[in-house]
């Protein structure tokens, strides 16, 4: 393979690799100050380590070239002294670099741990469940607090303080574009914060192994302009839309009836008040089902209702045994919960 050939192959490959750095779930594409701190620290560590690697490789190449010129090793007094000086230099350099790393990561940690309390931060409680996220927007006026799941909407430019705990086992909240990881611990509350400086949709995951469906415990943080956020908040505060046609009201009866949906799920404004599973008051307004596992479409919703274990084995939603007409009515009702 000629050199030209290598570069024609390598250039697109490198571009493809670089393009993976951006996107919805990437620590290399910071969208807020917390993620930026970590990004800068990472860059500093990578670049320094890269430079050290290159220096070591250069020294090795030099040594190889030099040893070719000589048949016998240099055991003279002067040669020994040179070797000693080189070793001292290398060890000293290594220690100095590690000390610099220590100081830089300490400073990053300091900067990272300061929570800016000015400018009326938005307070959100996050409760980890196997395997989904309960999101509660706290407001001092209780009737303006609201509960949703797996999707956190935030206004751009406003500090968001997350107070987190877990319902069952240890989880970890990680939205790489916005902030580092923070554990959710049962019986104990942890606090972290982030700020999204530009609008966008940022995907997050659970970053602490928490059981069978750990890998399918995703969430979305949607940062939008303040006016749009306020509109979303008002819409979410409203009770569930009552069914408008006969099919949807049949579906509502299915939901409230024999299949026991109400034992686990809440739909505000109706009799359904279960607290075991996610709040479904505005289910149709969410983008994904089953904590970011599948898109929220009618087909996936039907599959999820009938056979959740086929989509997410081990999830705590039980399979349902419904007649096709019941299922279709239920889907129409659920899709009307905007």
């Amino acid at each position, binding site marked *: 393979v000629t050199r030209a050939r290598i570069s024609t192959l390598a250039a697109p490959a490198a571009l493809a690799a670089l393009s993976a750095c951006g996107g919805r779930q990437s620590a290399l594409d910071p969208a807020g100050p917390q993620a930026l701190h970590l990004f800068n620290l990472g860059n500093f560590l990578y670049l320094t380590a890269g430079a050290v690697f290159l220096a070591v490789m250069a020294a090795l190449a030099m040594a190889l070239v030099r040893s070719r010129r000589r048949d016998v090793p240099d055991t003279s007094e002067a040669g020994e002294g040179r070797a000693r000086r080189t070793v001292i230099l290398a060890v000293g350099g290594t220690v100095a670099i590690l000390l610099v790393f220590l100081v830089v990561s300490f400073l990053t940690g300091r900067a990272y741990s300061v929570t800016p309390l000015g400018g009326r931060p938005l307070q959100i409680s996050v409760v980890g469940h196997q395997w989904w996220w309960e999101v509660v927007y706290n407001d*001092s006026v209780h009737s303006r607090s609201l509960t949703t799941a797996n999707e956190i909407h935030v206004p751009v430019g406003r500090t968001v303080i997350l107070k987190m*705990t877990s319902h069952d086992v240890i989880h970890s909240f990680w939205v790489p574009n916005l902030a580092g990881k923070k554990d959710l611990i049962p*019986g104990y*509350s942890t606090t972290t914060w982030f700020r999204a400086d530009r609008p966008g949709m940022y995907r997050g995951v659970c970053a602490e192994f928490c059981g069978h469906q750990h890998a399918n415990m995703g969430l979305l943080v949607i940062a939008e302009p303040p006016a749009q956020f306020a509109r979303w908040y008002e819409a979410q505060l409203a009770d569930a839309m009552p069914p408008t046609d006969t099919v949807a009201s049949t579906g509502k009866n299915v939901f409230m009836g024999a299949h*026991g949906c109400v034992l686990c799920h809440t739909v505000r404004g109706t009799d359904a008040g279960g607290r075991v599973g996610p709040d479904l008051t505005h289910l149709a307004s969410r983008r994904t089902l089953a904590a970011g596992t599948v898109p929220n479409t009618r087909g996936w919703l039907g599959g999820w209702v009938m056979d959740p*274990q086929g989509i997410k084995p*081990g999830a705590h939603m039980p*399979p349902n*045994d419904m007649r096709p007409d019941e299922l279709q009515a239920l889907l129409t009702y659920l899709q009307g919960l905007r």
Partner: protein
Amino acid sequence: MRLPRGARLALGTITLAALAAGCEREQRRFRETPPSATPGSEVQTSGGFVPGPPLPEIRVVTPYLNNAYAVSQGKSLYLQMNCVGCHSHGGGGIGPPLMDDRWIYGAQPENIYQSIQEGRPNGMPAWGSRLSSDQIWKITVYVMSMSGQVRKDVAPGRDDHMQGKKQEQGTEERNPRASGGIPPASAFP
């Protein structure tokens, strides 16, 4: 004594196989076949109080007996479905205790299943129309574990909330402010 090479190899293989066999103690059953797919698989229930001699006993083998995963799932269902409200954590209250050896309606798995599914007089609601049969089976095996009817290594461990001592951390959660509502932002570290 030095064993020949072949014998050593065989011995090693057998030991490894024995160790590997220990890895799979039991199977987690996630995807139960719905009862409608296999007619007749559901537990026959008596259909309420009927006059005359007692109905013939039903013999069912629950797939979950001595399955640790199912027992732990049953435990969380027991909490989620608020069985605690009447039976407490086995000690009873409004409902009868479940951790003793006195059974009003029978101690067999199928009796317990039936009690949950059909309900019982004086307040036990019928769950048959609300929970799926595998969920009822899971609760059944957990209820059995309370009175020591499942193997010891299968029964769930102790509860964090039943400790006599105070938790080391997280006490603030138990003392909500008298004024109510959320603490001011300055209370966040």
